[in-house]
């Protein structure tokens, strides 16, 4: 299966979004998205500019994953969540630094950069955003 080995160019071109939360905003209807798209998914406008998204948000929905895909075995169980950022932008991310049983809807979270996937001992380390409960 090809996906054992992470594609370097694929991760590399996603770095602005994965490291710095750079997304898109429609200049016509204002809708914000990650990643940036050429066409606004809400109004169809092609005027979409690059914007930096806020680092804080809240958990809309979550699940504790017990049955992982290849490459995520060692992290299991982990939490996948739908997160809504402060400006309303939504994304899918792992939660980290949290007891999976303490996660709840509405939990306030902030972006951190963590290892998301690693290609074995010799391949790429793919860092990207995860979210953790706000530091107290």
């Amino acid at each position, binding site marked *: 299966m090809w996906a054992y080995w992470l594609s370097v160019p694929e991760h590399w071109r996603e770095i602005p979004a994965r490291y710095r939360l750079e997304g898109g905003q429609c200049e016509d209807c204002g809708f914000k998205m990650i990643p940036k798209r050429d066409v606004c998914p809400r109004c169809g406008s092609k005027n979409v500019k690059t914007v930096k998204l806020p680092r804080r948000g809240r958990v809309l929905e979550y699940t504790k994953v017990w049955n992982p*895909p290849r490459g995520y075995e060692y992290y299991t169980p982990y939490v996948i969540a739908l997160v809504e950022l402060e400006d309303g932008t939504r994304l899918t991310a792992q939660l980290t630094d949290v007891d999976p049983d303490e996660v709840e809807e509405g939990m306030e979270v902030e972006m951190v950069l963590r290892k998301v996937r690693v290609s074995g001992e010799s391949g790429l380390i793919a860092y990207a955003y995860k979210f953790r409960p706000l530091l107290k």
Partner: protein
Amino acid sequence: MRDVYVVGAGLTPVGNHWRLGIRDLAVQASIKAMEAADNPKIDYIVVANALSGIVDGQENLGALISDYLGMIGTPSLKVEAAGASGAAAAVTAAGLIKSGMADNVLLVGVEKMTDYTALEDSNMALSTSIEREYEAFFGATLESLHAMVMRSYMRKYNVEEEAFAAVPVLMHEHASTNPYAQFKFKLKRESYMRSPYLAEPLKLLDAPSIGDGAAAVILSVSPNSPGGAVRVSSWGQATDHVSLYMRKSVTEFPAVRLAVKRALERADLKLSDISFYKIHDSSSVAALIEIEEMGLTERGKAIELVDSEDSRRNGSTPINPDGGLKARGHPLGATGVYQIAETYLQLTDKAEGTQVSGARRALLLSAGGLASNVVVHVLERV
């Protein structure tokens, strides 16, 4: 446009076919279907499959299967739309006939899922139907998205986890007499609550298992067949955002709503014209939302229907009389063709063990990914 008929069907049981490869499964089902239709001259082969590239390392299935059927020279191609590949391939195949490009088409759906025996590998293959770079990369699986939909559904409609047992219980009950089913046994509600979590609150018994299988049907411009014919009277298709996070609602499948509406309107039909339904129960909660989106019940009320006698084979609204994805099995890209093949047998009174008596018309729903590509067909007795 010309009418399209199903004039023959062939199935293999769904399961672990350790000794059969993807080409063997496809060939076995195809030969059965062609023999059932008295071996018409096939103008086109349409192969439905979702995972052969990633699991088998084999693409170019169109040519491969025509080759192994001894039919080289016959035009052939593969159609892919994740879990709805079978139904999408049927749209393609029917289109060839309607347009006059072909008179007889062999439609074969095949999926070989067990060649990698670790769940991690299957999960990775199944994750190809969600958005790779912004869902799967982060560790999300198709199951984990169903799990979030389930938790939202529970909260929104105040439903307990136990209640979802109704879906697998129904599917297993119906599959228990289906000779082609992967799981031919009934399920106790207690077993549901004891089953392990895949992604909380989604449990092992909420979701289909991994299985191999192939189903084939012959689509024809002519209803003349020794085994009888069933008319493909309508179809509808709609798409949605592939990724869950882009959607306005987590507990709705608008593509299901739209595809069903298109299919019914196209043939000027109402739900009351339908004798039974085949839904895409890729998880218990997905089954419930589909039932609601079709308009069979109000939102949040589908469990009552699934739990009642109405959803049984001899009830008023039979759902998945052959056991559905959960218990008949879900060989991903082949499932849509299984639905058509089983419905052909139903509407020609040949559904051994699972016959819905007097059924006239059926609505078939296939939902690829997390209902991001939905295809509906209406089939009726001629």
